């Protein structure tokens, strides 16, 4: 049985890398005694698939992962307790906020997610940011050089920007940008987004708020692709 989890990554744990977190999951699943299906071959690995990597240092309210539960070794009636069992053994800051059962044939998270919504706190004041946003939105083309798989590529990133909103953080006199950035065919990273036009903005804090799958008609949450498990309706959608 393939289960999809939605989790947070908030607080100190934000400084753990995507790779670190993958290991944390492997160990946590073992600690919670949740048996996984292993890959075949020379060095069997547990079947866990992670979604789009979150930059080290960023927080998130919506990370996803799919794992292949070995249901022959697991009491079906216990499945409802998986989120709680896992949250108990996961490090502080990672909490399970949703779980659904996936169909046997489904598109991977990496491939299906089409855009993500970021909250980007920047150093610049609200006037500067408004001006910057205006330039970005009014541009037909925003060509930047970025690195992909170790190669420098020149890209027009304007089509990757779906939406931008600006908010002032009164307490610290900082400005927050909420931006929806496309992830297909290549993800636009928040750091690249801030370099879209001069003067580049300086990022202070980053948090992923949402991940969306564009179905053509509307935008849905990755959890919406799974089947709700009877027992935990409230965990099925966010």
């Amino acid at each position, binding site marked *: 049985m393939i289960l999809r989890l939605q989790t947070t990554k908030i607080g100190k744990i934000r*400084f753990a890398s995507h790779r670190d977190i993958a290991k944390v999951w492997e160990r946590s*699943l073992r600690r919670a005694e949740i048996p996984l299906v292993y890959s075949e071959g020379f060095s069997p690995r547990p079947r866990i698939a992670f979604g789009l990597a979150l930059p080290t240092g960023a927080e998130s309210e919506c990370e996803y992962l799919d794992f292949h539960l070995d249901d022959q070794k697991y009491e079906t009636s216990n499945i409802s307790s998986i989120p709680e069992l896992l949250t108990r053994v996961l490090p502080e800051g990672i909490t399970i906020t949703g779980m659904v059962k996936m169909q046997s044939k489904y598109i991977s998270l990496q491939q299906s997610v089409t855009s993500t919504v970021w909250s980007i706190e920047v150093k610049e004041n609200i006037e500067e940011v408004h001006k910057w946003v205006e330039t970005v939105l009014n541009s037909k083309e925003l060509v930047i050089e970025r690195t992909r798989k170790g190669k420098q590529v020149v890209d027009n990133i304007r089509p990757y920007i779906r939406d931008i909103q600006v908010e002032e953080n009164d307490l610290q006199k900082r400005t927050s940008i909420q931006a929806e950035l496309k992830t297909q065919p290549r993800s636009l990273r928040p750091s690249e987004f801030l370099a879209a036009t001069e003067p580049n903005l300086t990022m202070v804090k980053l948090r992923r708020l949402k991940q969306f799958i564009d179905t053509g008609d509307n935008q849905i949450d990755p959890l919406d692709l799974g089947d709700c498990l009877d027992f935990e309706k409230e965990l099925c959608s966010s």
Partner: protein
Amino acid sequence: MSTIWEILEGYLDQVEKPARYIGLEQGAQKPSHAETNVAWLLTYPDVYEVGLPNQGLQILYEILNESPIAEAERAYAPWVDLEEIMRRERIPLFSVDTHRPANEFDVIAFNLSSELVYTNLINCLDLAGVPVMSSDRENMHPVIGAGGHCVYNPEPLADIVDFFALGDGEEVVSDITQVMHRFKSSEGILHNRQELLFELSKIEGVYVPSMYTATYDMNGAQTLKPINDEVPKLIEKRTIVDLEEWPYPKEQLVPITEVVHDRLNVEVFRGCTRGCRFCQAGMITRPVRERSDEQVRTMIQSGLKRTGYDEVALTSLSTADYSGIKDVVEETIADPVNCGQVSISLPSLRVDAFTVDIAASIQNARRTGLTFAPEAGTWRMRQVINKLIREEDLYGAVESAFSQGWRRMKLYFLIGLPTETDEDTLGIARMAANCVAIGKRYTSAASVTVSVGGFVPKPFTPFQWFGQNTLEELNRKVHMLKDEVRKTKGVKLKWHDPKATLVEGILSRGDRRLGEVLKRVWSSGGTFQEWSEYFDLDLWLSAMEKEDLNYEWFAYRHRNVEEPLPWDHLDAGLYKDFLWQEWRDALEEKGLEDCRWTPCYDCGACTGYGLDHVVASTSPPVGGSQGTWQDLDNGNFAPQLLQISSKAR
């Protein structure tokens, strides 16, 4: 309770591997720091990935946090990128558990496992805002302690560290806590530092250097005198008699980010009586104390379950010698709870076919590499160092490994050993070539990596009197080996930088005068000296020169039996005349048996504990040629009788 997290957080985006500084390990504690409790900051003076797995530190962390009057957190040396930010932004050294500033702790205790980290210790003190020299510290400052293998010659740090704890730390940390708690609860702070240090000096196994004055004879050799009659003349190391009573760590820390030895570690025994004469660890951790296989199994089972690790290492100085090794390995692999996904690693392989068979039974899938440590290239040389492996043993092990699917071997050797000739050195290349030849019979991909390190004589070993090979001599030997291995395809040579070996040698047997040298090296930027990219011999040599000290005198000189040694006031449990006899026997190329399976030769280690030999097995180890005396030329003779002196107290 204060924390610097909010400040630190803002800079962690700017450093490499920020997860080094967040803590959050499974098993980490968040002490509340009750007012009268003694707060320990256990510090490993190297980067997090190297320091976190240290078992000694983790054991003490648990024991202290279990105590109702103590609390412990951990700190590691910040990497150079963060250090720069910390100095610029005035962020002090901090604990990773609650990010509490280091100078708010009562004790900062360092684990010293290599001489090259000494300047990092100084750097940590400075980052903590604590004066580097003990004499400059006041009541408000934490007390600075150190333990670990290097403290068997603590003299280079004698003016910097307030107290050293010798031997096993399990019991002594509580004794130290008791004394400090008495001081803390009467006044709320650690008042009267001098008085406190004096009280600490009365604890068995604790050495407080400021309670001794150093004098130097006309040849420059150091002798220490206690400042009064109440200060002990001789400080004996602490030994826990029964390892079984200390099943620590019970909750091994599982880090968020990758570290070295990232696996469950279960210590199966402590001590070693193989008697390799170059090996300080084997000498100072005697006697051998085994854990019962029942406890080992429980620790493996509960440890795997609790940590989620899929690998367990059975640790000790020579794990194949553990009497329960076969059963423990087989049962762990067969345990259905582990779903067959658990692998076992044996960090110290013995050189024989039996060991390879054990390795084969656990490494079902990936047979990438196996490591052996023959240490020397000829039988003569191996008799000198008492590493009594016959050439047949090695070839048998190698043959067995290649025939069971391994394709790469790694062989560890020392160069610069006492009496070493070029024939001995070249023997290393010859042995490696023979191993490749054996391998080629099984796979064309057979390769052997030879790793050589320059020998550094260490205190409390039979070689403590030996003058280390010069830098030039070690370089010559490395080059000679390089030329020689080039002749054989499939042999690769790696070597430890002889320059670093020289500095290790200066510090390993150095005296108090080196404190100023350490300070100079540190202040000229010489931290992370165990990292080749930061190591700088010139810093050391120019600091020696400025202090008017001759590095050749410290490292290259043979000592004679009359010369006072800078660690003569310490007692590692070994009789000095046993060590001296061993040194003479070494020079005569005479081996000495492992006393676990032969009569006692009275090294001194067991004396005073009411034990003869603390082993679980009275029969020789299975399958090994290194087990008893059968591999010795003088095998049928009874062990040498040595003159036994009573320990001076």
